[in-house]
């Protein structure tokens, strides 16, 4: 693996680290298997690209993309809490709807912003080669988000959210408004995923309707890899593990793709990811709460 491939893996690992954090919050903290992310990731990309092309400030455009992601999470939570639609189904409904919404937002399947200013533009004058700059910015963003998330989860409100996912009956007995913390958590989760999408579009110079496919599996893979490597420890370690899991997963993928003797092509990525997650789910004795959640279809 050469330097370019290494830095590329680092960059994409950090961008999808945001997805991993979002998936961690919904699946692990709230116990809410949420597939909305396949729609909210491209939603973030679509909103940011469309606004940037229209001449909006990239930072403002990114903020709007984050809010759009939060709204998507709220819709899924609403379908589940208000109408008692099963988690997975509620999130699939939102995800499918978002496909059309994203096309509407972009007006076409692909929007290029390669020549437009992005959130990275202000840092380009600092004399750092573009090669290093993008992974650095991506890392800075995901590290800040992870730190904020970890701080949130050890707060009174964050602890209440964890109790909501772990034991809702007990949570209510302790005076926790479980519906409210589910709404907040789902909004935060999808906001982080949309931020990942917005960053992805700006790093790669385009938004495309297809970039969402398999986002959830990639996010799960990152969470699983992180949990496998960093067992035990408190919530702060678990949050850091998501981020590191995402980077390690991308590095492993880059290694596999670069090793000619395996004969993998970039387009095999989704297959490899699906296999990895499947193996993680069926491995006997794997300390894997996702396993219980997914194989039983959630509570």
């Amino acid at each position, binding site marked *: 693996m050469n330097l370019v491939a290494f830095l590329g893996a680092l960059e994409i690992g950090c961008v999808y680290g945001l997805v991993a954090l979002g998936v961690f919050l919904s699946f692990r903290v709230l116990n809410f298997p949420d597939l909305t992310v396949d729609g909210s990731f491209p939603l973030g990309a679509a909103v940011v690209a469309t606004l940037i092309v229209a001449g909006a400030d990239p930072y403002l455009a990114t903020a709007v993309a984050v809010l759009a992601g939060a709204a998507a999470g709220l819709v899924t939570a609403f379908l589940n809490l208000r109408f008692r639609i099963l988690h997975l189904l509620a999130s699939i409904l939102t995800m499918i709807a978002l496909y059309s919404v994203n096309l509407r937002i972009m007006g076409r399947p692909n929007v290029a912003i390669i020549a437009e200013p992005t959130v990275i533009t202000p840092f380009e004058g600092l004399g750092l080669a573009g090669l290093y700059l993008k992974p650095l910015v991506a890392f800075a963003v995901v590290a800040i988000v992870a730190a904020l998330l970890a701080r949130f989860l*050890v707060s*009174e*409100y964050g*602890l*209440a959210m964890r109790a909501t996912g772990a034991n809702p009956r007990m949570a209510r007995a302790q005076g926790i*408004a479980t519906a409210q913390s589910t709404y907040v958590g789902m909004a935060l989760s999808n906001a982080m995923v949309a931020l990942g999408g917005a960053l992805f579009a700006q790093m790669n110079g385009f938004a495309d309707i297809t970039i969402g496919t398999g986002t959830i599996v990639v996010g799960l893979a990152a969470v699983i890899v992180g949990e496998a490597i960093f067992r035990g420890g408190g919530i702060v370690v678990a949050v850091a593990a998501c981020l590191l899991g995402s980077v390690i997963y991308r590095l492993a993928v880059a290694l596999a793709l670069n090793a000619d003797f395996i004969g993998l092509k970039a387009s095999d990525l989704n297959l490899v990811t699906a296999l990895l997650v499947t193996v993680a789910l069926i491995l006997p004795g794997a300390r894997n709460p996702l396993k219980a959640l997914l194989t039983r279809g959630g509570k």
Partner: protein
Amino acid sequence: MIRIENLHVTFNPGTAIETRALRGLDLEIPAGQFVTVIGSNGAGKTTLLNCLTGEVPPTEGRILIDGTDVTLWPATRRSALVARVFQDPLAGTCEALTIEENLALAAARGTRRGLASALHAARRAEFREKISRLGLGLEDRLGDRMGLLSGGQRQAVSLVMATLRPTKILLLDEHTAALDPRMQDFVQRLTRELVEAERLTTLMVTHAMRQALELGGRTVMLHEGRAVLDVADEERAGLGPADLVALFAEVRGQELDSDSLLLS
């Protein structure tokens, strides 16, 4: 003070599986009284507690706490007034969270939860002190996951959790039933100490007649959703477990008599 007026709870009304769990229960409990509640399976004891916590909405009737009508308050709002220990040690705590995180959850019961850190030095010191009083050595394991504790240890911690915040009412639903005899005695003693120290208005459901008479100052027997026996003070002091069982049988016997009358 708790006042329960003409409380009715009907599950699945109008269907083949309609269950009238409570059928016009009246009960008045002065502040600070410790009441033990007995009754056969399905008598409505848990339903009564669920009505007090707000988990089950009454079909009819009123519940007043210190003169305030709380009948329509949701469980989250009631939690400021009512603390509860569940029968199932797993139900009252979060096993995925640490002991101190569980305690922190309970320490904020009924308050607004903001973005301040849930655990800080002062709080940890308070938890340590409260948990060390249990004498189970758990004060050195506050960072352990709750799931690592035995059922009895969890019930003991649940009791501490229930009394971390000032509360008006403590509800105990067969909270010693899942424990071995030694742990049962321990949790029973702990219950008595905590209730006395905090002067809590307490309702404790139990199937153990001895426990029902040993603890508290008043015993109420529920049968088919109504209070059929209510003894306190001297009258109760004169009763033994066998007397209670006999009274129990008498109540059910009368029932049989009236049934046979109806049938004949």
